[in-house]
């Protein structure tokens, strides 16, 4: 792959061990032409911020499943600011606790900590397309 192909950073938050969705997102984005660095599960916000400072990704995607995403990620904005970094932050998965949640309220709560909530992998790809077009081929995604 060429040096300048855009890099995307993936991670699962500090208290969360759910690996599958994040792994599938990695495969999905790679298939669509992005370079992907996946930091894996139980990643503290400081580690995410360090990786942003080092790798300068065009976006960060978090997969949060265990319902702790808000408290896990509440410090990430500050961690990035300390390192003088700014990068679009996205999150998907089961981002809050419990079976019912009001989508607007969820979006607002995450906006406070600097995140945009996405639903599907396709949303992730759309968000990336707005930031920078992928290196090759805009083939339609296959459902995973």
């Amino acid at each position, binding site marked *: 792959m060429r040096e300048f192909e855009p890099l995307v950073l993936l991670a699962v938050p500090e208290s969360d061990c759910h690996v599958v969705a994040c792994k599938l997102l990695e495969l999905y984005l790679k298939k669509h032409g992005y370079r992907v660095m996946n930091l894996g599960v139980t990643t503290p916000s400081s580690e995410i911020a360090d990786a942003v400072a080092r790798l300068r990704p065009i976006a960060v995607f978090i997969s949060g499943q265990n319902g702790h995403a808000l408290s896990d990620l509440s410090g990430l904005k500050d961690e990035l600011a300390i390192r003088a970094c700014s990068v679009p932050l996205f999150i998907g998965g089961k981002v809050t606790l419990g079976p019912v949640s009001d989508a607007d309220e969820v979006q607002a709560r995450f906006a406070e900590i600097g995140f945009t909530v996405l639903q599907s992998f396709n949303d992730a790809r759309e968000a990336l397309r707005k930031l920078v077009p992928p290196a090759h081929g805009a083939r339609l995604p*296959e459902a995973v």
Partner: protein
Amino acid sequence: MKLELEDLLTLRGELFRNAPIPAFPLEETLAALAARTCPSVTEVLGSGGGALKIQPRCGVGGQAEMEELLRFLKIHGEPDILTLTIDAYTRLNLYEKAATTTELNGYPLIHHGAARAATLEAAVGVPLQVRHGSPDGRLLAEVAYRAGLTSFEGGGISYNLPYSKAVPLRRSLRAWQYVDRLTGLASEVQTIDRETFGPLTAVLTPPSISIAISILEMALAVEQGVRAVTIGYPEAGCFYQDMAALTAIPRLCAEHLRRLGLPDVEIFTSFHQWMGVFPKDMTAALALIASGVVSAAAGKATKLINKTHLEAHGVPTKEANAFCIRLCKSLASTSVAEQAGEASSERVAEERSFITREVDEILAAVYDLGTDDLVESVASAFERGLLDIPFSPSRSARGDVLPARGPDRSIRYLDPGRLPFSAETLAHNRRRLGARKADDHQRIIKDINLLAGSRLPGLTSRGTT
């Protein structure tokens, strides 16, 4: 090797020096266990002439909310055993975060402490088990036993490799050696049940990997003086494979304890209803839950850990949980469930012999690395890939194994990685996988999601509500 009591006490001193709670004398723990009035988990498991026991998962952050949840489930679900499901911060020893976060996905036992936990069991009169997912569960065990609780889930393999990425396996194995030694000590005044977490990553876990790892954790526990072990087994979703696995477990456990020169202990089985991706459609979810009860009963499992129709949607409401406990209880007493086990077929017997052989082949290779320090052999077996866990997020598992489903939905080894299987075992797995059409990557995603799909015409995966 059994940890010397002196060494345990030294380690205990270190543990409490770095703990957020003050140390307490071990005598207090033994006194609390001796003074219990509620039946112990082991007593419940051994009672009732083999009728399937039902236990939910349940845990919320607040003390009052937790008590209310347990009371509600007791009254409206009538479970045989109740659970303290611990939150994800406490599991990862992030006690400060557990103490300051308001919305938790479980009960922060360390934060609330032993005295409060003891009032929970007293309030419901149903024995409580602590279920968590902690690579280092030492402090949790200390507090659980100090609260007089009689059952503790987990192990150095099964509570590390699915639950973290950076905790080295040797470290979690040593931490759990402590837990087992403490349990052994406590067992001198009160039988304590130690349960293995057989589901592992819950993503297409092949039965023989699950059972082999549970047997190793059982052996490590018995070595330290544990006298009652429950083997956790995850529903595979193929009726005869599940029945074969469940009925293979007691014999395999007894046989391997003997092989290792360890004493006989009480062995129970715990059937986890489908642990992977669940259907969003609630009717399909209930059907999956119902069929799991039949498999558990047919395989003569001691107990079943139930799921709910909200599994795919988030932590279930107490109403949904109570409803599903009752559903499982009433299904378990139908003639279908009671008699399914009698209709044991040749196919089950054949499958049982294949599972038994796979487990024996894996364990023989581990024992070949030496059995005087089983912890070291297990760690080294993982490094070499003789033991492995598919889809593990941990750096301590190679992750070379790739499972897939056969046409009968049984879980097989598509790629056995470096597992020490004989040519016969490999050929058997290939045969049972059948011809493969889709490319492997797509097929595996399909297999992971197989039981989450709704096969009812007219229902989308989005569900009915």
